[in-house]
């Protein structure tokens, strides 16, 4: 589906923005339109962070509650409609992940789930990042970063990890990881600008 790509063609982006403006006026059909067009992509984003379909679906539902009540806050001059939606879902997923961790720390029942996440933690996010960089045609430019720097960026973005968790996953000192993330973001900005994307 075209809408699943973040870099939507302008017409689709405009359509989604128009639907959101109708949602702000209480149009239920427009709300369902936004949901149907974006839910699979947004659930994918939440699932990468939470690694649980149930929790990701809960987050999706909460996020769309906010979309219904807060569509008036969508400002096309600040961010595109898909960016706005992804941001709501990512923030909710990150909050759910971090509040869940506190609960999980006091139980051992979910350790297996945590182990499963750990096994896949470093590989998949990096593959997603590499594919995104290819799609954005900035692989060469981002290639100036070392592999660990790209990995740190991928773990933060796709898994919602904080610096200490990335340090643990990659077996690197905290200060080094912070510098990797910082340089990764700087480089991303420079490469997107050089490619005329942002």
């Amino acid at each position, binding site marked *: 589906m075209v809408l699943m790509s*973040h*870099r939507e063609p302008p017409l689709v982006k405009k359509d989604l923005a128009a639907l959101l403006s109708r949602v*702000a006026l209480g149009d239920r059909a427009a709300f369902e339109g936004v949901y149907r067009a974006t839910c*699979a992509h947004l*659930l994918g984003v939440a699932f990468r962070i939470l690694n649980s379909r149930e929790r990701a679906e809960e987050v999706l539902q909460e996020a769309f509650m906010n979309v219904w009540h*807060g*569509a008036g*806050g969508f400002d096309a001059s600040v961010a595109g409609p898909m960016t706005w939606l992804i941001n709501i879902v990512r923030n909710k997923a*990150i909050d759910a992940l971090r509040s869940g961790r506190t609960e999980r720390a006091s139980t051992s029942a979910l350790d297996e789930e945590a182990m499963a996440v750990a096994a896949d933690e470093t590989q998949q996010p990096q593959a997603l990042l590499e594919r995104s960089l290819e799609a954005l045609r900035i692989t060469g430019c981002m290639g100036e970063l070392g592999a660990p720097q790209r990995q740190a960026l991928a773990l933060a973005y796709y898994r*919602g990890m904080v610096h200490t968790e990335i340090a643990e996953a990659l077996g690197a000192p905290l200060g080094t990881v912070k510098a990797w993330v910082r340089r990764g973001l700087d480089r991303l900005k420079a490469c997107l600008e050089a490619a005329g994307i942002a």
Partner: protein
Amino acid sequence: MNYLLPERLDRLAREYALGTLAGPARRRFERLLRQAPAAVRAVGAWQERLGGLAGTVPPMQPRESVWRALEQRLFTSSRRAAPEGPLQWLWGVLSVRALGGVLAGVFLCAVLLRLQPGLIGMEPQSEVLPQSYVGLLIDAAGTPTVLASSKRHGRLMTVKLLQPVNIPAGSVAQLWALPRDGSAFPVGVVPGTGTAAVALADTSEKLFFNVSRLAVSIEAAPAKAGDKPSGDFVLSGHCVKLW
């Protein structure tokens, strides 16, 4: 600490957008986002850059129950309050769709009668505004921002934004009623621009009889009965009786 120095702001904005800003620092930055348009813009620019990385995430179709639950939570709260007993069957018959048709009919009648009051021999009786509760909320700079009004015995509040309100992504603008004696209770969620109709939990008369002020705060999610405002009010104003 001045968070709005461009370099510091950009550093915080990118860590927030990426998600690595955590714990109390994340909450502090979210508070800043509610107040500083410069922070909203800085985060928006980074979200747009990072958004390009989301395109390759494999989609995952949610189960249909997610949409159904969403519809139920958002649109059928009035049916949950349906009376139990002999009339319960009536609520089953009056589906949301049927109710929509009835409301459309009522609306059409109202429009026709307004345009052609002579149709049923009904002329406007008075030019006086109906008995209503009205609130005019101003922002920190004193600019009128929200006009809220509801008929005295009605269950619907009309909210009109006189200027846009900046609502950070993932948050909502929550309207509160502040009684003369007692603590604030949630009324509903207001949009960032335009006009909205907010369904009230009871008639205006019952809800607002003792209410002297209305106010809006930015919340992470719509407040439920019993919730309290989590932070400062971004808008507030008097609530008056129009009769």
